[in-house]
């Protein structure tokens, strides 16, 4: 569906954020980009979204076609909601920008919010919601236009462990239900092992791909207590230890 070919990105201060990254993302995959801070994960995500341009190499979308507005959903590390708008209006935003009317979309927004556990909070302003709930609104906003590709930049990093687990469960359920493609950036090994269908481990400075791994069997039952999950975490930890410079 989408691929990066020998993509490099250097910032004006001379930092090489990405150096010759090759990555191919299959339709319907849940790709997790895992790596320490400064390994260019977020830069890669912005390049995939078209929010930034590579200095060399190219990002190819469906063999050359450019994505249409609404085909890519983006979830940032902060919920980045409009503080003056309630949950419904925040979720409505992408559709509004596409020229749809709220009355046509209200039922759809309500059902998506309910699916994300926000029934009854349709008219709450961001200031009235908890951090986890704001992130749920942010995910609903990214999904309302039924994007083919959902890009997520450490969306759960600022949340507590319990909230994070619930959101991970819900995100996985949504992914399996909709069949959309997800690229998810994180620096949590546990989160990567739990979510990924495909794992991409990156090294810092310059940002390069160190290892790729298959995720857990998607049909498996309760993943968190599955011995296979513990084994995957162990294997990723070994990968990470190998690539990190010894001090």
């Amino acid at each position, binding site marked *: 569906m989408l691929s990066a070919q020998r993509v490099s990105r250097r910032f004006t201060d001379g930092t090489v954020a990405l150096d010759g990254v090759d990555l191919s993302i299959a339709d319907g995959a849940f790709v997790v980009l895992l790596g320490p801070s400064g390994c260019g994960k977020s830069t890669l995500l912005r390049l995939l979204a078209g929010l930034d341009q590579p200095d060399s190499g190219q990002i190819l979308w469906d063999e050359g076609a450019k994505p249409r507005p609404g085909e890519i959903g983006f979830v940032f590390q902060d919920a980045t909601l409009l503080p*003056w708008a309630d949950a419904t209006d925040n979720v409505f935003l992408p559709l509004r920008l596409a020229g749809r009317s709220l009355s046509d979309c209200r039922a759809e927004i309500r059902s998506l919010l309910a699916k994300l556990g926000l029934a009854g909070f349709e008219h709450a302003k961001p*200031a009235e919601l908890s951090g986890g709930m704001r992130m749920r609104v942010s995910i609903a906003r990214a999904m309302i236009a039924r994007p083919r590709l959902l890009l997520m930049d450490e969306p759960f990093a600022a949340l507590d462990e319990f909230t994070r687990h619930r959101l991970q469960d819900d995100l996985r359920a949504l992914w399996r239900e909709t069949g959309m493609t997800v690229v998810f950036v994180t620096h949590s090994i546990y989160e990567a092992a739990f979510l990924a269908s495909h794992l991409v481990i990156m090294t810092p400075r310059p940002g390069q791909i160190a290892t790729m791994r298959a995720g857990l069997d998607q049909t498996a039952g309760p993943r968190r207590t599955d011995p296979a999950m513990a084994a995957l975490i162990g294997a990723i930890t070994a990968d990470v230890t190998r690539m990190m410079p010894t001090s």
Partner: protein
Amino acid sequence: MKTERWAPILFGIFGLLIWQSAVIALRVPVYVLPGPVAIIQAFFADWRSLLLSLVATLAIAAASLLAAAMLGMMLALAMAASRWARAAIQPWAVVLQVTPVVALAPLIIIWVHQQFLALVVCATIVGFFPVLSNTAAGLAATPPALLDLFRLNGASRRQIVFLLRLPSALPYFLAGLRIAGTLALVGAVVAEFVASSGGFASGLAGRILEAGYRLEIPRMFAALTLLALAGIAIYAALGAFERTILKRVGAVSSHHHAP
């Protein structure tokens, strides 16, 4: 209820008492420094004319505030829309801001024949700068992630301005408006002073000058007190307006967490 709230009022009353007793004890002549009682008497002796003058001054200040709000907002929008406009406008806005309005007023009064309009122009020059600089800062402070989000969804420039930049700049604009309100009053009075020498004397500045010529110092103080009270009232009213709007749009604090 916090007791500190009463502190300024109690302190004021205490000050007035000291003032009145000092004036009596030291036998200060009323044409040098009248006591509060003489000032209140002077106000009641001439309340009609003083209040009419206050209304005239407030009308100028209000019209200027409206003009300053619109002018400041429009210039800030132009500056946010194009880098060229920003480079062109900014230095001239600063020039207008640093040129004392007392020096500009005589020219403006000559150029603009309609007295009320001339005074409004002077007071607007004083008042528009905080609206402009605050709104421009607000328009520039739009969260970059939200801009990215709008672009990803194919938002037009118009949609970015009206659905994102302007609403995010609202708290900045309102803070600028609050400062502009008191400056517009100052500007109105300064312009009136200049205009009074040309015969225009319907505002409070006219009353102050007139009382000065006639050595009616208590009446001068009464006019001065009215001006100070009007300034406080404008500041408080615009502050309340700001809080009401921000509360309604829910932008007071995005960091508040619900349980």
